[in-house]
């Protein structure tokens, strides 16, 4: 009986982490549904980007209020993991405050966790007010209805509860320490929970232990539950922001990739000696190369990683000139749609014993409409605005490529423009021979 709590704890831990690991496997499988892309270049720069952008939060502070509050929650989250480690060790070993022998350092650590926990509560409350009372524009866009709205609030509630449980636990512990109750080592400094502690004054030792244990258990179970909530939530960014900034593009933003499959075709076309009929028939006559993207499997895995990393903050959308002027395009929606479709494809694969079975749907039209795609000015505002190096523009461009090269479905005006370039070497119907006329004109 004595070891029952330890056993229960280990079971909870194994279940919690096991289920999470299963989801991570699914996540990785889904991301790998994307086409391969070589991102093995310039590793020093990639590490630097990750350190600066994800670890250093440099792009968060472009918007100072949200940026500052986010840094509090972020630092709180990172630092409090030391506390979580202690809780896990205590849970397994049946000890109490196993790090206590650290002495003054321990006091300092506990004190800083408490201060951070308090600041996180303040930040979370302000975040909640911004979403629900002040009603910031970017949280009210059409794509934010339903689950995304609920998800955003749920995260705030969970964080609030976890922080309160942590402080309650410490407050009860503080009282027990004062009463010299066995097992409750005198350790730690409680600059915040000392103000909660008076509420527990005069309670019996057993009641105090009950409060302390309940808060302790709910706190760690809450953390395990939250860990497993991540996969289903925009909160996944707390993990994926790191690989995502590492794999983010290192090219100048204006540089779009030159499709290699097209280069080969163009070389054939431009080579006067090429004999199209002499091309050897490939043995593995697989499907012919598809130009551009109409579904998630046509995108590359970094674009799919982007979709899972998106935390729906909407900074991209609020900077988007098309969105600002009332057009249907929202870069955030492009990312959310991509993730939703990828999840759908993943579930399809799970339901069909590891093989995707055609569901008559695709990312194009069923999720993202051509109207959204054609509204983009390729200005890169969304790419610049993203605090975690997501590139919605690359998805928009790949889908335009599909519309134009596979479906010939460009707007008429653009077809005219392209016809002009093809015939006259200019987007307007002027003769190439007139290109130098401006010299003589007044």
């Amino acid at each position, binding site marked *: 009986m004595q070891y029952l709590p330890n056993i229960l704890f280990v079971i909870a831990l194994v279940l919690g982490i096991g289920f999470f690991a299963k989801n991570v496997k699914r996540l990785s499988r889904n991301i790998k549904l994307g086409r391969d892309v070589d991102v093995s270049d310039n590793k020093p720069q990639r590490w630097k980007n990750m350190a600066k952008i994800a670890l250093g939060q440099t792009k968060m502070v472009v918007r100072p209020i949200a940026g500052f509050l986010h840094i509090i929650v972020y630092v709180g989250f990172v630092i409090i993991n030391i506390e979580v480690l202690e809780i896990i060790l205590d849970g397994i070993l049946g000890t109490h405050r196993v790090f206590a022998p650290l002495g003054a350092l321990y006091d300092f650590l506990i004190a800083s966790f408490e201060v951070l926990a308090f600041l996180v509560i303040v930040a979370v409350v302000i975040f909640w007010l911004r979403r629900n009372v002040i009603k910031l524009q970017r949280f009210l866009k059409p794509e934010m209805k339903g689950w995304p709205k609920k998800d955003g609030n749920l995260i705030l509630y969970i964080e609030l509860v976890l922080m309160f449980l942590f402080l309650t636990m410490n407050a009860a512990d503080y009282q027990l320490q004062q009463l010299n109750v066995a097992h409750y080592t005198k350790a730690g400094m409680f600059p915040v929970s000392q103000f909660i502690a008076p509420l527990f004054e005069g309670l019996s030792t057993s009641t105090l232990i009950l409060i302390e244990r309940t808060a302790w258990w709910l706190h760690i179970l809450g953390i395990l539950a939250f860990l497993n909530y991540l996969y289903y939530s925009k909160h996944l960014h707390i993990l994926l922001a790191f690989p995502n900034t590492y794999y983010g593009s290192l090219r100048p933003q204006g540089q779009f990739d030159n499709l290699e499959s097209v280069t080969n075709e163009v070389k054939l076309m431009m080579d006067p000696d090429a004999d199209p009929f002499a091309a050897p028939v490939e043995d593995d006559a697989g499907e012919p190369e598809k130009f551009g993207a109409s579904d998630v499997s046509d995108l590359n895995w970094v674009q799919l990683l982007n979709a899972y990393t998106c935390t729906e903050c909407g900074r991209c959308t609020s900077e988007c000139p098309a969105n600002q002027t009332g057009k249907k395009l929202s870069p955030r929606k492009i990312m959310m749609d991509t993730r939703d479709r990828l999840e759908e494809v993943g579930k399809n694969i799970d339901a069909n014993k590891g093989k995707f079975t055609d569901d008559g749907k695709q990312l194009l039209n069923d999720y993202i409409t051509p109207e959204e795609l054609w509204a983009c000015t390729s200005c890169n505002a969304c790419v610049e605005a993203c605090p975690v190096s997501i590139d919605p523009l690359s998805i928009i461009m790949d889908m335009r490529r599909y519309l134009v090269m596979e479906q010939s479905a460009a707007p008429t005006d653009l077809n005219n423009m392209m016809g002009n370039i093809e015939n006259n070497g200019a*987007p307007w119907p002027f003769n190439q021979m007139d290109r130098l006329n401006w010299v003589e004109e007044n």
Partner: protein
Amino acid sequence: MSNEIKVPTMAELSAAGQQPEVLFWVGCAGSFDDRAKKITKAFVKLLNKANVNFAVLGTEESCTGDPAKRAGNEFLFQMQAVTNIEVMNAYEIKKVVTACPHCFNTIKNEYPGLGGNYEVVHHTQFLKQLLEEGKISVEGGKFKGKRITFHDPCYLGRANNVYEAPRDLIRKLDAELVEMKSCKSRGLCCGAGGAQMFKEPEKGNKDVNIERTEQALETQPEIIAAGCPFCNTMMTDGVKNKEKEASIAVMDIAELIATAEDL
């Protein structure tokens, strides 16, 4: 203003056994659009004044393929690119200057992957260098104290991190540079990029160029400076839409410098 300008072509120089220091890539707008042609001429006058050894491709120049690529037609883009690269490589071109950020971006960033490697500079960067070398000057104070706001072209600014060259030039005019609420890396698009120039905008509340013009007007400028022929068109249209064309001029940086120089 003198209208005589010297514009040698690569073909002429090549026939004479000469190689210019830099190729001036005029671009489609600069060649055909009536408003943009004035920018081209202003820039050429400055090149002449500074005795820059340059040439243009003239009838051998073709669209870089930028609008085709941004519209999704990678085939057409690469056909254009490969053709242009063949011409430029045949002339052994090393350095390219252009007044169009779209041509600038494409030749600088997308041509290398297809075999075209050149040093590419935007005309504002080139002019800044000429000024620093003392080859041109901006005396006379024509723009002294005038309120000028600069609209960052997406394909120059965000796309390639060129923010300061055009601003330095405006400051050199002794003008008062006023920034819009969205500027530099957070600049708002003029609405023409990504091949939007060649189609009607999708449905919305207003056009992007109107929104951008409103931001420009908030700074109460006498001149809206641009560094892109497409931005120039969009901002000019915006100013006309607000019926401010009598009091606010939209001018390219090259035109500002050329006017200051009385060219």
